[in-house]
């Protein structure tokens, strides 16, 4: 989705000190609500995340207005840290963030550069700085997303991760208006990372925690994914899908939305297999509808109700 950039502040007429501005009209002009509502519709749950994004949007809007009154302030610090369990949408939100900040006129380009430890940290002395700078240069004007940022730090004298962190810090401080850095990682590992790099923690203004999805949210996510792929659940498959999610979420290595996606992938596989094995003639509805047996064949149900004769 493209929202285009709002007009640059320089192109708008400056305001006199006694002018009064209609804020709702300003919101409309900047298309803030349009952008935020699109986000609301596309992302299920994630209330704390959305609240913070709304706050940021308001700040950017107010900053634009202030600039038109001639009130100058330092560019806001929008570096963020996303923490949360696997599959809670950290990467998805980061991708949307570039679009969002571009739409709100904070960054010049709608682009996101994803980097991991390998892209930033070098193999030998003098290798790290050019590598890190190269990534930072590419990300300028947009968003730099560092997934699993805690991997940058390793407890070893011979590791060059610390060098990358220092360059990163320097850029985060000096190029605030050119670059937004988003760090992401699992909560406990990121806490350890910040404990050894307090400077990093204080330079990140927004620490956003991604909560786990509850069952109802997982179900809506599943429906959204199915709809995106042109599938639907048969009426009698709906309770089965719900049971499946309830069971799966209690099992180890449950990865929230990612597990839902995998479950749907496997159901599609069984669905295709069932169609080719059992019927010769299929219609559009057959190709679209997932039936209970597509989910019931799952290993998740097998552990719950062992079939007679199978060793557990």
């Amino acid at each position: 989705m493209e929202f285009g950039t709002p007009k640059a502040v320089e192109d708008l007429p400056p305001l006199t000190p006694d002018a009064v501005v209609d804020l709702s009209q300003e919101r409309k002009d900047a298309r803030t609500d349009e952008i935020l509502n699109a986000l609301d519709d596309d992302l299920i749950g994630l209330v704390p995340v959305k609240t913070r994004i709304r706050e940021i949007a308001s700040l950017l809007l107010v900053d634009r207005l202030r600039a038109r009154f001639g009130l100058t302030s330092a560019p806001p610090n929008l570096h963020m840290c996303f923490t949360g369990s696997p599959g809670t949408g950290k990467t998805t939100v980061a991708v949307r963030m570039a679009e969002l900040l571009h739409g709100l006129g904070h960054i010049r380009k709608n682009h996101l550069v994803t980097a991991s430890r390998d892209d930033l940290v070098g193999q030998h002395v003098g290798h790290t700085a050019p590598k890190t700078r190269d990534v930072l240069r590419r990300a300028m004007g947009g968003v730099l997303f560092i997934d699993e940022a805690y991997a940058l730090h390793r407890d070893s004298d011979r590791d060059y991760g610390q060098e990358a962190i220092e360059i990163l810090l320097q850029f985060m401080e000096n190029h605030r208006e050119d670059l937004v850095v988003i760090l992401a990682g699992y909560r406990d590992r990121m806490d350890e990372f910040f404990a050894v790099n307090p400077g990093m923690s204080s330079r990140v203004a927004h620490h956003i925690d991604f909560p786990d999805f509850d069952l109802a949210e997982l179900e809506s996510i599943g429906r959204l994914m199915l709809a995106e792929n042109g599938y639907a659940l048969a009426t009698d498959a709906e309770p089965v899908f719900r049971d499946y999610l309830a069971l799966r979420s209690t099992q180890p290595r449950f990865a929230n939305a990612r597990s839902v996606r995998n479950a749907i992938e496997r159901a599609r596989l069984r669905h295709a297999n069932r169609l080719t094995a059992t019927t010769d003639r299929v219609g559009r509805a057959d190709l679209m509808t997932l039936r209970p047996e597509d989910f019931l064949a799952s290993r998740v149900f097998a552990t719950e109700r062992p079939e007679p004769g199978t060793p557990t």
Partner: protein
Amino acid sequence: MRVTQGSFSFLPDLTDEEISLQIAYALDRGWPCSVEYTDDPHPRNFLWDMWGLPMFDLKDPAGVLLEINECRRAHPDSYVRLNAYDASYGRQTTAMQFIVQRPAEERSFRLVRQEAADRRISYTLEQR
């Protein structure tokens, strides 16, 4: 003597904002930029030293300007120029090139004559 070469050579030196706009123009056309420097601006010296590799995959002028400033800081008394290379088939050439820094005091050139066989005269430029 003011050395002129490349694009915009007839204009006063560009400001950083103007340089940014030119870089944005190049990047929008998919021309990767590179920075070069030299202390020998002789017109025959077209191979200047490279400041790092050409910058591929950049989308925003701020990244290129950053390298220009790094190069300026490292070589304050050199000429620094920006190249934008058009790699598209059929062109494959430098599409834009202009000087972004010159030393505070520029040296000039003088014409040197040399008499060769049969009273022929060869001319060349020599930096003073």
